[in-house]
């Protein structure tokens, strides 16, 4: 079966054929970089530099004010030195002479970078079934398939374009799922965010192709603070995928993004992530991305559905909880996750399912794989509000340990204020053993294939929820990352 699936060039490139992190290169391009540090002037400078509408200045300054009063949270099961927020540059963009009209006007170096990464930003090379928005450092450089989508009434553009071209729609939804003062990192993002993707699917429209954003951090010492906003109007549906890589630097880089999803009545949003940010040196733990991201979806309408699928293999630290607020009656939230940590990587990830509407249902399937000296924690909250009659949740979290120096942790939280709720939680921990691998070998199957097969078996339930062409590649990515850990 698998062989018949045409390889998706985007992800097969993310995966690559080598064990080393192959996206560690830096693109040499003239960039506009804001001096390091943050204060009110920085926020104003970002606003001015980006030529944003007036209302955005207020939005940003309000967020900045809140952020200044907040303290960085430290409750996650991860360990990192204090972040110097004055040592980060909050805005970096490839220099462009004027506003980009067509793909050809994207600076050549940037186009080359995405070519090298296998992201087809040029129209003629684009994937036929995937529309791509490419974000380079802080700026969206190219969005493909725009015209075709526009004919369907679908808006797929950079967040900058959205606030300028569709201000009413933008204002109506931005910050409504993740308020500016929601938490420390959300406030920081709201104050300094640069670009990102915007999607609007009109009523009763099924988006005919996969939408995708590809994020690339290039400049050393810059943070990446992008923002994604997806709105599925009544009766519509969309499937969206994001992919991420970054160059190899010895310093840590902060990635504090926000993703907001809004599903109205009978709408469905499927959001998939394949994250392969630079993970730092596997021996010393030096460098790598701090992936501190706030992702939240709101099932605002009745019978709506939001589904998160994430394959997390990169970053020095992954700290995020893609969540669902199940507000509409009969709404459904799903979370399917594979988090792999190797070397010195750390992850504290999971989800929050907030049941508010009646007959709301949620499913959480989490698979954590931990190898070498890595640590992997699942943290999940299921909350049932007093009015959420007949809420149901099923949670399954499985951990797999490879070697004897890695660790796995589970922190489930259940808060139920309604007696009619049915909540189930299952957990397991297992190990890939030398005996299992040898058993395969004795039958003529290589260790690589053995690991592949065991991991695929372990993650099957999650891979099944990825768009098919990505599932094969995601599984290959995991195998490659694990290969040198097991033997």
């Amino acid at each position, binding site marked *: *079966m698998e062989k018949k699936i045409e390889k998706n060039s985007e992800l097969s490139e993310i995966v690559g054929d080598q064990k080393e992190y192959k996206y560690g290169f830096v693109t040499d391009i003239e960039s506009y970089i804001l001096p390091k540090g943050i204060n009110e002037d920085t926020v104003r400078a970002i606003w001015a530099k980006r030529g944003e509408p007036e209302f955005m200045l207020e939005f940003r300054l309000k967020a900045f004010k809140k952020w200044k009063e907040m303290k960085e949270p430290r409750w996650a099961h991860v360990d990192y030195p204090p972040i110097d927020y004055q040592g980060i540059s909050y805005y970096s963009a490839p220099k462009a002479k004027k506003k980009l009209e067509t793909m050809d006007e994207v600076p050549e170096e940037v186009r080359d970078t995405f070519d090298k990464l296998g992201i087809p930003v040029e129209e003629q090379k684009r994937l036929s079934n995937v529309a791509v928005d490419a974000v380079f450092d802080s700026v969206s450089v190219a969005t493909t398939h725009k015209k075709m989508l526009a004919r369907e009434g679908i808006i797929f553009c950079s967040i900058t374009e959205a606030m300028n071209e569709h201000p009413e729609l933008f204002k109506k939804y931005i910050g409504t799922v993740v308020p500016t003062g929601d938490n420390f990192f959300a406030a920081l993002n709201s104050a300094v965010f640069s670009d990102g993707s915007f999607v609007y699917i009109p009523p009763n429209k099924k988006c005919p192709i996969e939408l995708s954003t590809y994020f690339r951090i290039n400049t050393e010492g810059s943070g990446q603070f992008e923002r994604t906003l997806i709105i599925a109007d009544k009766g519509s549906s969309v499937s969206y995928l994001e992919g991420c890589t970054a160059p190899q630097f010895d310093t840590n880089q902060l990635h504090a993004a926000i993703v907001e999803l809004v599903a109205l009545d009978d709408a469905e949003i499927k959001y998939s992530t394949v994250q392969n940010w630079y993970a730092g040196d596997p021996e010393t733990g030096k460098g790598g991305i701090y992936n501190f991201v706030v992702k939240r979806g709101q099932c605002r309408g009745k019978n709506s559905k939001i589904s998160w699928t994430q394959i997390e293999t990169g970053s020095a630290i992954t700290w995020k909880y893609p969540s669902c607020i199940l507000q509409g009656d009969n709404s459904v939230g799903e979370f399917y996750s594979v988090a792999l940590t190797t070397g010195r990587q750390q992850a504290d990830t999971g989800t929050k399912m907030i049941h508010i509407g009646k007959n709301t249902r949620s499913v959480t399937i989490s698979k954590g794989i931990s190898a070498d000296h890595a640590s992997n924690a699942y943290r999940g909250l299921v909350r049932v509000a007093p009015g959420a009659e007949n809420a149901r949740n099923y949670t399954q979290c499985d951990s797999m340990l490879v070697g004897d120096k890695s660790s796995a942790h589970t922190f489930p939280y259940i808060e139920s204020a309604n007696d009619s709720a049915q909540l189930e939680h299952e957990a397991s921990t297992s190990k890939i053993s030398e005996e299992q691998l040898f058993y395969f070998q*004795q039958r003529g199957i290589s260790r690589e294939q053995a690991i592949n097969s065991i991991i695929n078996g372990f993650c099957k339930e999650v891979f099944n929820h990825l768009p098919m062409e990505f599932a094969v590649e995601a599984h290959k990515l995991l195998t490659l990352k694990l290969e040198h850990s097991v033997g």
Partner: protein
Amino acid sequence: MLEVKDLKAGLDGTEILKGISLNVKKGEVHSIMGPNGSGKSTFSKILVGHPAYDVLSGSVTLNGENLLEMEPEERALNGIFLGYQYPVEVPGVNNAEFLRMAYNEKLKKEGKEEVDPLDFDILLGEKMKLLGMDSRYKERSVNEGFSGGEKKKNEILQMAVLEPKLSILDEIDSGLDIDALKTVAEGVNTLRNKDTAIILITHYPRILEYIKPDHVHVLSAGKIIKSGDFALAHELEKTGYDSLVQMAAEKD
């Protein structure tokens, strides 16, 4: 087919096999018997290249090729099969898929085209019928939650599918009731032919009533202390290992 010369081997620096020589020809069934701790399982693990065990000296060739230099999977692809005493459970990996993977590796080695899941399903179904295995074992994870008897049958099923040149069956009779033992033995017998060989490792002579060996060797403290034909197995049944071990000790 298999030539073992003065093989010394061990585990964690302890010498367990203290000079074993054995010659197995095509079409033969050899039984290696011996008390617990005599080195029977070590011998089988060494032949298949288990990484925990070390060869100290001696040589092993398979059809003239140096077996000890091959990776475990290479040995398997050259036709060596180990039927496990304690088959390994692999949760999440579908039994039929596992077998198809192994079968395809063999086909690849032979320069043949891989078999697709549908054709393989038919082949597997025939082999399972032969062993009286329920077809639901196809869809279950490899050995996970199988009873002792089903695990052993599953080993023989793999042997039947892979058709190895040399099968080493390690205590394939342990933990089996008499019916299961008969089925397993019948399965092995149908796989016997003039081109393949079997090394049957066992503690109890009982299984030899069902799978009749051409040669019987008694292993004690890492050495073959006596070799003979099927009659030796009968002798052992009467006298037990102790007297044989004692006699060997006196000879030294």
